[in-house]
């Protein structure tokens, strides 16, 4: 087996997702999904329901009256929030693990993932693009491939880093050159193995190179830009540093301006703290310990 085959062979043994997460992600196929559709899926998981109720009652929303049922929680939070909190809670344990080759602690990969998810969603809102949760989920899962790539990067790190400097390549281009495959591709293979909806797989596969996508949808651009911004701002940065090249066409397609970027940046700083606390304090039991 060559190096690429060795890496790809790890995809099939990658831990599966909680069943509930799969059901939720399937809702991304439906552009008209409502809060009650999401409620129907999550109501059978008591811990997740508890998390959502807690979110609805959090001080962050600044409301005085308590919600007492999942339906009230959904009504208050809206379908987007419900979806985001549910998916994040379920996926937390999969992403909260150290990745040696990139020198990411368990906290780093999680922090980067949740930051990119939230940033993609904040930009989405600033740019007034209709989307239930694709940009967020794509952001949350875009770097999953690093979990498998990590051990292979470990042995070749110096070679990859020299390639970045000598040939002026971005980090994932150098990964591909030295190892035969890069972390976006491995992440996409995991997502396909998990039977994720195709647009979500695209967000993961093309997050460093939106131009290569067979069909460029805005969620890919959003994840790409959110990733670049979060790396630049130091949310969960590993040994690969900030050696990434943002795509100018994505900037043009989204009509991004410095003002929008700076507004989103300040928004992310506060949202991240809230969501991070919420999910860390009470992750759903289905997600906790299952693969650890």
């Amino acid at each position: 087996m060559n190096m690429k085959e060795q890496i790809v062979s790890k995809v099939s043994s990658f831990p599966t997702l909680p069943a509930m997460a799969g059901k939720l992600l399937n809702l991304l196929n439906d552009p008209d999904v409502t809060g009650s559709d999401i409620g129907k899926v999550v109501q059978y998981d008591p811990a997740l329901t508890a998390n959502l109720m807690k979110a609805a009652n959090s001080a962050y929303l600044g409301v005085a009256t308590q919600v007492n049922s999942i339906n009230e929680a959904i009504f208050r939070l809206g379908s987007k929030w419900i979806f985001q909190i549910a998916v994040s809670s379920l996926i937390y344990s999969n992403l909260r693990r150290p990745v040696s080759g990139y020198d990411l602690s368990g906290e780093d990969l999680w922090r980067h993932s949740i930051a990119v998810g939230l940033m993609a969603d904040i930009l989405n809102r600033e740019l007034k693009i209709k989307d239930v949760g694709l940009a967020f989920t794509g952001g949350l899962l875009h770097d999953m491939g690093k979990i498998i790539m990590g051990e292979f990067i470990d042995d070749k790190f110096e070679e990859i880093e020299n390639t970045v400097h000598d040939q002026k390549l971005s980090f994932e281009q150098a990964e591909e050159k030295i190892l035969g495959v890069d972390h976006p591709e491995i992440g996409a293979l995991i997502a396909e193995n998990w039977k994720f909806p195709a647009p979500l797989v695209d967000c993961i596969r093309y997050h460093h190179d939106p131009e290569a996508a067979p069909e460029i949808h805005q969620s890919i651009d959003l994840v790409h830009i959110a990733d670049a911004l979060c790396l630049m701002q130091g949310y969960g940065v590993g040994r690969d540093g900030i050696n990434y090249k943002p795509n100018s066409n994505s900037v043009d397609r989204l009509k991004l301006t410095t003002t929008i970027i700076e507004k989103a940046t300040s928004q992310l700083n506060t949202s991240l703290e809230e969501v991070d606390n919420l999910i860390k304090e009470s992750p759903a039991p289905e997600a906790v310990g299952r693969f650890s």
Partner: protein
Amino acid sequence: MSLVVLGISDLQVSKNPDDILITYSLGSCIGIAAYDPETKVGGMIHYMLPLSKISPDKAAKKPGMFADTGVPILLKKLFAMGASKDRLVLKVAGGSHLMDQNKVFNIGERNYLVLRKILWKNNLLIKSEDVGGNLSRTLRMELDSGLTTVKSSQGVREL
């Protein structure tokens, strides 16, 4: 020795000689280590954006997020603790940028330019700095001596 870790948008001052102020992952953000060697009063900030006008409500809650709100507060707190303007040693790290950057991502450079302007207005100079490039940096300062170092993929160096 006790490590005082600053997150993004935090600012801290101390005159406990046992303290080490440290902040990680400075990309486009800027970290300032300020120290008065005589009174051994020191402080640090990790701000992420240049100007608070982009979001005044966030600036009110977290002034350390912006250079124009955070840096003056850092200075005031240092002076209130006994630091003197004449003796204050300022060391700066961060302000990185992405590769092949598009102008809209210019936050690192803008962060640095606004800082220069604020310091110039206050008659303060930067003693040493490690800014720009594509690096992610860690800034660390020991309160008993003022020893300040920057760590990045290029190694550790004293500022």
